[in-house]
């Protein structure tokens, strides 16, 4: 197994991968069988060096506290991190993440999960007064960059990431996702080309409740990384996708941007397009480009972004990676290939592709505004 604290002298990762997402807008939960079938159809888009899933709604009994998924190289690493957890968190429950060793996945790190919340009298309060979310973010950054052989790969509420080295269908069997239920699933099949496949490098990348699966290459990784470092994000994983998760945390949670606008920062309209907008829109988009120039993603990408209230599919501004959507009743499906959707939903009501740089945003219906009319393109 590749050691978790990866010291590869590599700038970042390029990948040509497969993506899938399923959401039920009424938050009806389904198990992991469909998403496994859908991503398995895209088997040949990956090469067995990374597969993973994010699922929302999987821990209803601990919905108010943080669910940490952590991978460890060895018991010493586990001991050190648990020391930190004990000092700073009230741990309601901890256990091994249930796994089923198969002939395909038999070499893996120690996988453990913790349901917990930050202590109110924790040590760091002497120095600063972080809110719970901020403290969780700084704990994730600290463990991922400073603790040898330990990596937090999930830290949200009522959601979880399940990932590793292997084809996604084998990773699904390994984590027994047919026993896991959620109202939204995303999946990734990895084809790493610039960094080795290691457990921490598999998608999704998550932070708090945000999750990202990504196909493509973020050419702007360097400038995005330097920008994020100003806001105390540590880019410890050496893969380009990591920046997307942190940029969205910064824009949506810290700066309070609506999801729609955050997407328009990642894939900002070209100035020639802004030029043609109505005065008010023009002012808004010009301001976004000026303020968030360093958060713009360059290079080819297709991403599926998951957050508790919905799912977003987004392409780069000139559509250099595939992305297809389909709906059937309360379900919406997103995938790199239409056949992937039809594998689990043979006759969708509609099938369409997002336009370059224009997000498809599917919100669960307990939040206002089901469809963002301007952006949800059904043709």
């Amino acid at each position: 197994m590749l050691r978790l604290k990866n010291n590869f002298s590599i700038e970042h990762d390029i990948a040509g991968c497969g993506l899938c997402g399923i959401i039920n807008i009424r938050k009806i939960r389904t198990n992991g069988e469909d998403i496994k079938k859908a991503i398995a159809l895209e088997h040949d888009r990956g090469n067995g060096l990374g597969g993973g899933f994010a699922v929302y709604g999987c821990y209803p009994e601990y919905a108010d506290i943080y669910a940490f998924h952590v991978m460890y190289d060895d018991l010493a690493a586990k001991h050190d991190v648990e020391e930190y957890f004990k000092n700073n968190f009230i741990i309601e429950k901890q256990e091994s993440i249930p796994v089923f060793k198969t002939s395909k996945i038999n070499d893996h790190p120690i996988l453990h999960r913790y349901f917990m919340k930050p202590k109110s009298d924790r040590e760091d309060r002497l120095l600063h007064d972080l809110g719970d979310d901020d403290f969780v973010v700084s704990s994730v950054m600290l463990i991922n960059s400073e603790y040898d052989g330990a990596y937090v790969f999930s830290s949200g509420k009522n959601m979880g990431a399940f990932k590793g080295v292997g084809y996604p269908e084998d990773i699904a069997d390994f984590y027994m996702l047919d026993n896991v239920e959620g109202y939204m699933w995303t999946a990734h099949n990895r084809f790493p080309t610039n960094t080795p496949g290691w457990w921490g490098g598999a998608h999704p990348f998550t932070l708090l409740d945000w999750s990202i699966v990504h196909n493509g290459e973020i050419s702007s990784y360097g400038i995005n990384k330097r920008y994020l470092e100003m806001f105390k994000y540590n880019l410890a994983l050496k893969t380009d996708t990591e920046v997307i998760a942190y940029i969205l945390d910064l824009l949506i949670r810290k700066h309070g941007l609506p999801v729609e606008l955050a997407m328009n920062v990642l894939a900002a309209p070209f100035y020639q397009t802004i030029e043609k907008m109505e005065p008010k829109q023009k002012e808004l988009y010009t301001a976004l480009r000026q303020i968030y120039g360093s958060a713009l993603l360059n290079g080819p990408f297709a991403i599926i972004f998951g957050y508790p209230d919905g799912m977003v599919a987004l392409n780069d501004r000139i559509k250099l990676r595939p992305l297809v959507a389909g709906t059937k009743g309360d379900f919406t499906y997103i995938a790199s290939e239409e056949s992937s959707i039809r594998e689990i939903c043979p006759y969708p009501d509609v099938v369409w592709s997002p336009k370059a740089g224009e997000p498809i945003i599917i919100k669960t219906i307990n939040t206002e505004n089901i469809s963002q009319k301007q952006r949800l393109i059904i043709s």
Partner: protein
Amino acid sequence: MITIDAKGLHYKELNKIIRESIASGIKNVFLENVNGQYYIGDGIKGDNITITVNGVPGNDLGVFMDGPSIIVNNNVQDNVGNTMNSGKITIKGDAGDVVGYGMRGGRIYIRGNAGYRIGIHMKGYNEQIPIIIIGGKVGSFFGEYMAGGVMVLLGLNNSEELAGEYFGVGMHGGAIYLKKKIDFSKYSKEVEFLEANDDDMAFLKKYLLEYAKDFNLSSEDLIGGPFYKIVPSSARPYAHLYTSSSL
């Protein structure tokens, strides 16, 4: 004739059966329950061979194909007919991105819409004229760097937006025909927008009639003019990109 149930078959096995069938002299291949298998009909040669696909075929359908016909009764994914040399692909649904990349002969008829980068780098020489006809609308980069051949965009679905950005950018050969007038001022300065003349219509008629027949459309509606034509202003739009124009 052979009927193959493609359900659960990996593309390698499926394409092996198709190739062996054609090699053994079978002219009609029916594929049932296709879903996502890549490379169907790639590099196959021969006359009077027809592959009928039921289901959504995977990427790279009919790539390098030289002679046969493929009929798809559903949508198709990306990269259909890449570098196709001759033959015909008929698609009853929509097509994904990058149809007919570098295509050098044959016909691709699409009943529905098509995605981004349709007919980019298409080329033609003497009797080798690749033809793509799209019934609906297309995304950006339509005919980018087009060097030859003919594309027809019909816009039959009455959608507001017939094509995306960067229409015909870098186009330096071939022709694009439109059944609907569009505001071309926002597009490439490297092309010219004209009304199609009688010679153009005489050339197009044969293909439009075939298209109408394939998709059960009224041929009068389809060939009734006027049509508009887009041709490159220059055969070498970038001749002076790196040198001064006085050289």
